[in-house]
């Protein structure tokens, strides 16, 4: 009887969770599918730590932009901050020493603030603005670096292994994820941003200073990207690329959309992005472990992305599209 009683309570909770996060089913399906297809390669500790590494990359890039997607805009500047910051770090290293890693959060903050102010005052669609800024940053980075990546070796301790098999970057990313979820779910800022995302005009009429909070959203996005990059810089090899690649841009966005933060804004959030990043990491890693041509993997991932976008924007009838 006791067990039955517990079941009565637990089952609805599970069903409710699965209803609100259908992605969990997809995640389990992916894990089962790859475990069956390639059991000897997929179910290994090495593979799980690779998945966690990918997860860290996707999540830390996607956390900041998620906040902007919640208000219904887009922020593509993260790759630009990564590239330009890496070069600035290399330039500042002889002058500031170990402190120069702070260039990432500061650059992120400044970029976010700049995007926010231009977007709110000049009213340009945010994806065009951030895309153009990204190209400008990429050009500046290549200019300052002289066209070749500049590695910085002093920060290897950030990702030095602490627990065997568990990437240290994963441990560092946990407090950042918690901070983002806390801001969006437990503070007034988060509530206001969700309100702006679901109905900007209404939020303004309700007395929220929409412009201020939109600038704040972009600033937070830049800041989270900057903080995440402190870890990612070393995690991704201790140097930043100086050549712009579309692939670097797409996968964090895919994690956001797959996680279930609709691009029209108003719902979703960082917790969903983390789940989306995990699913994407499992899918990517699983596909690479199957013996397929790399071209086929690219094609399948592209189709997965389209499917995620279509599923992620389902049920948005009557919304103005841009």
């Amino acid at each position, binding site marked *: 009887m006791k067990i039955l009683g517990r079941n009565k309570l637990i089952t609805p909770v599970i069903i409710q969770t699965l209803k609100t996060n259908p992605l969990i089913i997809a995640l389990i399906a992916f894990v089962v599918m790859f475990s069956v297809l390639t059991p000897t390669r997929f179910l290994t500790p090495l593979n799980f730590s690779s998945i966690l590494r990918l997860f860290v990359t996707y999540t830390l890039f996607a956390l900041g932009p998620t906040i902007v997607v919640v208000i219904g805009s887009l922020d593509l500047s993260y790759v630009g901050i990564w590239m330009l910051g890496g070069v600035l770090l290399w330039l500042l290293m002889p002058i500031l020493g170990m402190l120069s890693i702070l260039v990432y959060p500061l650059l992120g903050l400044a970029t976010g603030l700049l995007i926010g102010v231009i977007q709110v005052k000049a009213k340009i*669609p945010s994806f*065009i603005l951030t*895309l153009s800024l990204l190209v*400008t940053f990429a050009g500046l980075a290549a200019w300052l670096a002289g066209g070749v990546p500049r590695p910085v070796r002093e920060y290897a301790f950030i990702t030095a292994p602490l627990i065997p098999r568990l990437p240290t970057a994963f441990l560092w990313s946990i407090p950042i994820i918690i901070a983002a979820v806390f801001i969006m779910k437990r503070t007034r800022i988060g509530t206001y941003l969700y309100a702006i995302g679901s109905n900007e005009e209404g939020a303004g009429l309700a007395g929220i200073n929409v412009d201020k909070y939109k600038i704040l959203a972009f600033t937070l996005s830049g800041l989270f990207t900057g903080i995440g990059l402190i870890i990612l810089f070393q995690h991704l090899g201790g140097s930043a690329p100086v050549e712009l690649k579309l692939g670097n841009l797409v996968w964090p966005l895919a994690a956001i*959309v797959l996680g279930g933060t609709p691009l029209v804004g108003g719902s979703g959030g960082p917790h969903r992005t983390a789940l989306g990043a995990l699913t994407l990491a499992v899918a990517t890693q699983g596909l690479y472990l199957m013996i397929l041509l790399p071209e086929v993997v*690219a094609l399948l*991932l592209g189709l997965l992305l389209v499917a995620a*976008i279509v599923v992620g924007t389902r049920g948005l009838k009557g919304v103005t599209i*841009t």
Partner: protein
Amino acid sequence: MKQVAGHIRINVTTVGPMVAVIAIIAGFQAINPRFLSYHGIVALVNNMSIYLIAACGLTFVIMTGSFDFSVVSILRLAALLCALNIDKLGLLVIPLVLLISVGFGFINGLLVAKLNVPSFMATLGVSFAIDGVGLYLVGRRLFIMGGERAETFMALATTRIAGLPSVFYWAMGIWIISTFIAMCTPFGRRTYALGGNPIGTGLSGINVERHRIYVFMLSGFLTGLAGALFMAWQGGGSMEIGKNMPVPLFASVVAGGTALTGGVGGPHRTLLGVMIITWSEVGMRMLALPDYIIMVFFGLIAIGMSIATIDRRRIKIIK
């Protein structure tokens, strides 16, 4: 005099690009006397042709207030399909790639109009899938066309007429037709109406969803044509085709004065925008400036012209 000043102030997005084109020509000519020599002009004309065709397609999409990110991917795939199949199919390859490009445009339109996916994300996703197809077909190889059939195909774009390559005449012809479509046909007027006020357009009895799909198909068609002519003009290529194209292409549409909010501008303006972007690129390359400085320049132009063209009186909320 006062009237003229007032007119210029109101029509800054019309007058601005013309002034910019003259300034670019004068500036580069002053620095580099070979800018307007015969070979210089051929280089200018060569570089602007492909851009102009693709940008005309993109202009129609931007006129409706949407965005097409897949232009460069469709162009690349169309060009590579031409190179792959020219030996088997001969000139029949052109209708084939046009059909495929229109098909991708149709998918874009379907995602945007029927499934309500924001056009930026929809076309980005589609462009990724297209690149996957391209990689599957081509891999990392470089294709150089050769043989009798390839010669006829390449003659389409490289024959000299009055000293200029025929790809230029193709581009000008397509530009004139695009302008005619935008200005003088119901299709064009509907496109303007759709960009200006989608809800009002729907209420006045126009099938908005279907028209959006048509516009994306037109963009796919022109892009496919640009891809085929690109291959005929270059005679070879790999997956690297158009790697640096997305931002300059988009910048050339807004630099001409087509606002991202839709309903304003048109293909006739895109000609000036393409001149600004590609001619300054050629000028900077003639001065042997490195790629990344050109990138910074394009990024700043894109931001600046986006700010300048948007009609702030009309819009209240912008995402």
